[in-house]
């Protein structure tokens, strides 16, 4: 089928879509994968799509994954394009992660912290050996995990509250008179970016990009010497206070991953030495992303007042402008669109230069 179809454009597009649908379905000898299966069994993919798609809906995320044939940035794009059509009726109250129903909670800073270390469902400490039992048809169900003798405490104090009485950790109290939070989905990026704008951009940012930036900072390209203060995974409830009611009503329960990174702050004239923090939060279970986000947040915070911002992770414009994979993917792939008008202009120019070059050369040879 012609690429820049001459009058065939309409037909070409229709046919391409039909082929795409066929490829998505794959061999008809294999049963079709259900959205419910994706939702239940590819749950970490679903979590990533919800997070970077900025839309907490497991069903839609699973559908997007099915439709995109497992191409997660494409699924994220699908979810974003749906999300943008939804009306915004207000801002929820801040979620209270200290009241989280915790499923996993670890701190690398202390051997034990109030409430205890809770390992939870994690790939950590698994041996990465392919489990061929999973490949067998009709694999038997895993044995249920053993129940603890006693339930976890209702409220597990966060690393911030552990430090609170010593003032060892910087305070990050929200301004009570703050205006409405920045909404990156409704307003363009502005620089210098406010913290809420930055955290939104990072929360929506591409996991791979943030991971690499965080890694670069750890390796010394803008080192922040991070220490993982705490990671917690679990459910929190979202509350909304309608102005006409004046009291909060519960809207839903969300699973979130939260990470606090600590790094030393050497102190200044105004502040004694203490620990500063970087913050990461994602929908669902996305530890790699939450940790990367926290490290990048800390690096950007440290760079706010620094004179020398020499590393990519310290450069707010660089990080925030290039972290969004829907923008990045679209723009990189738009190079597939025809550019022959521009190319013709350039071609004409290069041909002219070559002609002049050859003329100059033969004139020189004639002279010699």
């Amino acid at each position, binding site marked *: 089928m012609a*690429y*820049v*179809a*001459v*009058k*065939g*454009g*309409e037909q*070409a*597009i229709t046919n391409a879509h039909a082929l795409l649908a066929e490829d998505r379905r794959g061999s008809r000898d294999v049963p079709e994968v*259900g*959205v*419910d299966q994706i*939702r*239940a069994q590819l749950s970490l993919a679903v979590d990533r799509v919800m997070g970077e798609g900025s839309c907490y*809906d497991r*069903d*839609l995320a*699973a*559908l997007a994954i099915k439709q995109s044939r497992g191409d997660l940035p494409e699924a994220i*794009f699908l979810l*974003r*394009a*749906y*999300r*943008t*059509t939804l*009306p915004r009726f207000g801002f929820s109250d801040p979620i209270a992660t200290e009241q989280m129903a915790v499923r996993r909670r670890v701190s690398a800073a202390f051997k034990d912290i109030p409430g205890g270390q809770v390992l939870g469902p994690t790939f950590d400490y698994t041996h990465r050996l392919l489990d061929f039992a999973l490949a067998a048809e009709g694999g038997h169900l895993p044995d249920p995990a053993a129940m603890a003798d006693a339930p976890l405490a209702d409220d597990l104090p966060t690393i911030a509250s552990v430090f609170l009485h010593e003032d060892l950790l910087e305070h990050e109290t929200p301004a009570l008179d703050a205006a409405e939070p920045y909404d990156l*989905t*409704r*307003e*363009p*990026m*502005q*620089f*210098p970016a406010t913290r809420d704008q930055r955290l939104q951009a990072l929360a929506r940012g591409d996991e791979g990009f943030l991971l690499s930036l965080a890694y670069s900072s750890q390796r010394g390209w803008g080192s922040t010497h991070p220490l993982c203060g705490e990671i917690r995974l679990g459910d929190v409830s979202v509350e909304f206070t309608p102005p006409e009611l004046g009291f909060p009503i519960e809207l839903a329960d969300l699973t979130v991953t939260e990470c606090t990174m600590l790094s030393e702050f050497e102190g200044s004239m105004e502040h004694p030495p203490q620990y500063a923090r970087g913050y990461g939060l994602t929908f669902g279970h996305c530890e790699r992303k939450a940790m990367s986000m926290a490290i990048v947040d800390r690096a950007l915070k440290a760079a706010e007042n620094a004179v020398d911002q020499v590393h990519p992770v310290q450069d707010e*414009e660089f990080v925030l*402008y290039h972290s969004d994979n*829907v*923008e990045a*993917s*679209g*723009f*990189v*792939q*738009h190079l597939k*669109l*025809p*550019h*022959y*008008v*521009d190319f*013709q*202009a*350039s*071609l*004409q*120019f290069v041909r002219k*230069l070559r002609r002049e070059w050859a003329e100059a050369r033969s004139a020189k040879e004639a002279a010699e």
Partner: protein
Amino acid sequence: MSVQPTAQAELTAPLYNFAYLDEQTKRMIRRTILKAIAIPGYQVPFGSREMPVPYGWGTGGIQVTASIIGRSDVFKCIDQGADDTTNAVSIRRFFAKIAEVAVTESTAEATIIQTRHRIPEKDLQEGQVMVFQVPQPEPLRGLEPRETETRAMHAYEEYGLQYVSLYESVSAYRRIAATASYPVIVDERYLMSPSPIPKFDNPKLHMSPALMLFGAGREKRIYAVPPYTRVRSLDFEDYPFETQRWDDVCALCGAEESYLDEVVLDDQGNRMFVCSDSNHCGERRAEGHVGPMADHALAGATS
């Protein structure tokens, strides 16, 4: 658990607003457009929405069109000058479907013309609106990567840096090398990228009776050239701005003054040149103009 029936119903039979965007978003974009018209050439930031086509594929142009289009409009969409390139077809189908407006390939009939990389050959008229798809609204970006810095340069009208790049070009090539996205000064104030149109089209911006709107979705900027506004392509007194010319004529319609595309005929170096503006070429042939290869297969396909 399966998809909730409500979500499924919404997804299979979407009830989108006229021209896709909700009315609040359209109002926001219209306010942005008004500001852009009031300050010709100035890039106005706006809350660009995620669109159902990818960034870089016309999201800015689509949002501008969606915000200004009404039921009585006649919509034309071109890419590389042609109505029948795939992305132009795709965008035209989008508006035909979600706004149910009349579509056309005729430049004269259209009230709104969305474009990527060209301005039609036929003179535009009062009342017509050109909507340009813009990948990079900032003409200085290639010279200065920081938005904070380029905004200051515009605010203080510090355009020395742009001239530095022209100077470098003349030093290297003995002419200004830019062939597309050739920077212009609008109304003797703001430096503006005309989007990646070939510089051949730059003179069409100057004192045009039509309204020119530029939408950059990914970069979240809208800017405008109002009707009858001065638009000057940057140059030096001793290296004046000039447009491209071809030694060839259009193989199909014989046009001497239009922008030509090169069509490679084989791998032996044979090629033909045809009008990039498919509507212009078709109309000329209908009027009886004949080019040297008028009976080539392409003629049947593009008429």
